């Protein structure tokens, strides 16, 4: 097994008395791509943000996040800022809001470049143009002088990507990078993230609500519910042969989202919800957090579910898992149809 770039153990993120995220174990190998999937409120964005130290200031992070051999939990503001500047890049959900409205985009990219090390003015400028070319922004000379509101949504997201890869980071975190964009430009942005991360040999954490997109772009998929990691494994295994009842329900409720062929058509759409509502913060049941919405729940589900290792990579936490043989589109039993709607 190759050494991890990122090793997370017993990570919790709290705001006040509420526990937003609680993840026992999550690893990311160098060069691999991990998709974080879940409904809104599942804690996927909070998980990703706590890894790069950008959780809200009122949140407290405990546990262990080891990145490239260095413990991140407990770092000072300054130390974490240096780690981000050197080795991490982040692409945010809403590119218009993520850019400073009163600063030319060239200058904003230049800021990211300058924070990677001591460079002369000319070197910074050259690197900015180089980055803009990499993210396929035309006429860098002219575009760099524009303000964010003068660019299109897709161009803005490309600017953000240019900033994220300025330091050639080892880890790129993309938080729903296409959600706020027009359907027509979403595909291009996804391809660009795919391309730049491959070229620069980056690990990627891709936060998304779309199973199809995640399966297409990621090697591994982690499914979150109520701030807990319910199932984790290779993308194909998760989408085609889910074991956790939540993953199963999520896929069945959203067959289009799970289909990679249709991924591009539906990335802009929200997930169809599973029957029952996600409980409010702090109102999750004991034991398995999904149990009161789960048609397959057993008495044991009131106890904390055990982590089962299906294989080296594939694990899930469920008392009454779906049978391993079941696949999408396969001749599954009537029970599944009954459970789906």
């Amino acid at each position, binding site marked *: 097994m190759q050494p991890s770039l990122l090793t997370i153990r017993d990570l919790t993120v709290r705001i006040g008395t509420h526990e937003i995220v609680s993840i026992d174990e999550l690893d990311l190998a160098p060069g691999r791509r991990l998709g974080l999937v879940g409904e809104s409120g599942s804690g996927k964005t909070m998980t990703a943000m706590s890894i*790069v*130290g*950008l959780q809200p*200031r009122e949140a407290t992070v405990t546990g262990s996040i080891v990145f490239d051999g260095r413990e991140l939990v407990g770092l000072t*503001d*300054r130390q974490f*800022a*240096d780690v*981000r*500047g*050197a080795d*991490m*890049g*982040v692409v*945010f959900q*809403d590119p218009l*809001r*993520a*850019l*400073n*409205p*009163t*600063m030319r985009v060239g200058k904003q990219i230049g*800021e*990211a470049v300058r*924070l*990677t090390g001591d460079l002369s003015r000319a070197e910074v400028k050259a690197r900015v143009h180089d980055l803009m070319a990499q993210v396929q922004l035309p006429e860098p000379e002219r575009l760099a002088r524009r*303000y964010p*509101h*003068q660019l299109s949504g897709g161009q803005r997201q490309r600017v*953000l990507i240019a*900033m*994220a890869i*300025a*330091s050639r980071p080892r880890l790129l975190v993309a938080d729903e990078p296409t959600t706020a964009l027009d359907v027509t430009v979403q595909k291009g942005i996804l391809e660009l993230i795919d391309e730049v991360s491959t070229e620069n040999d980056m690990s990627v954490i891709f936060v998304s609500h779309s199973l199809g997109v995640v399966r297409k772009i990621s090697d591994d998929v982690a499914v979150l519910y109520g701030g807990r990691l319910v199932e984790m494994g290779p993308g194909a295994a998760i989408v085609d042969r889910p074991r956790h009842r939540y993953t199963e329900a999520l896929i069945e409720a959203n067959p289009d989202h799970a289909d990679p062929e249709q991924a591009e058509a539906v990335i802009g759409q929200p997930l169809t919800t599973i029957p029952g509502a996600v409980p409010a913060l702090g109102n999750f049941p004991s034991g398995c957090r999904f149990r009161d919405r789960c048609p397959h729940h057993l008495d044991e589900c009131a106890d904390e579910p055990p982590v089962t290792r299906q294989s080296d990579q594939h694990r899930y936490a469920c008392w009454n898992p779906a049978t391993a043989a079941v696949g999408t589109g396969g001749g599954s039993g009537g029970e599944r149809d009954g459970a789906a709607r």
Partner: protein
Amino acid sequence: MIRLVVRKTAVLLASALAGSIVVFVLMRLLGGDVATVILGQGSTPEARDALRAELGLDRSWPEQYASWIGGLFRGDLGQSYAAGYDIFDEIVARLGLTLSLALISLAVSLLLGVIAGTYSALHSRDVRGGFVDVVAQLGIAIPPFWVGLLLISFVAVQLGWLPSGGYIPWSESVVGALRTLALPLVALSIALTGVFTRFVRSSMLDVLGEDYIRTAMAKGRTWRGAAIRHGVRNAAIPLVTVGTLQLGGLLAGTVVIESVFTLPGLGRMLMSAVTGREAIVVQSLAFVIILVILVLNFLLDIAYGLLDPRITDAEGAARA
């Protein structure tokens, strides 16, 4: 940008025109009979008629207005009948002092307000931020003329550090000017700084929740670094609008402060004209003071455009 300047210049000219008409009409309606004031109640009607004819007050309002405005451009606004000075020359001679007071205290208050407000916002979770806010709140309640009196009493009279009044023009001695203006400027700036500090604090607290602060952190800045590099400018933009709302109060404060420190500016001139009931002088002075406010307003509008590219674009789009 050029469009913005052109548009704001047009607004400035239109406001100045409106202001001059308002002042003129008000003085005609309320100013009383100038001839009676000059010659006294015991004067003969013939003498008053003769004086009115001499002053041009027997002509129609439009004619009088036109000759007033014309005089403004020619540099001839007539003479003070009580003190005998040439009104235009006197205004020109005193303008520098009043402008210095207004401009410097505005600049100083804006600067201090941005610094203190930012500090207060960045420490909003601990005692320091709250302390700055309380001090600012207190500062707003302190009237300039009272601070002026206290400064005269303690700094000027008891400690003897700075003069308690009088003015040495910039052209004579820069140090002298600064020494004579220091206390008046402090008096004028306290309340204004309080207003700006509180505004920047709340504006900065809004800005700190913006996504681009997080983006700057993602590039490798600390929270504080991101807040200062990206927050201050964005928080300061609405401050410009707040600044324009304070201009009237600032000029009013200047008028009062000139009396406190016996400074020979437009405010003292206005006070003696009001006391002497010299309607002709008051009319021109009131208009000049309004003009100063309008010009400062114009400058702040331009600063707003320079700070926020979205405004400049909106101007362009509106015209296109």
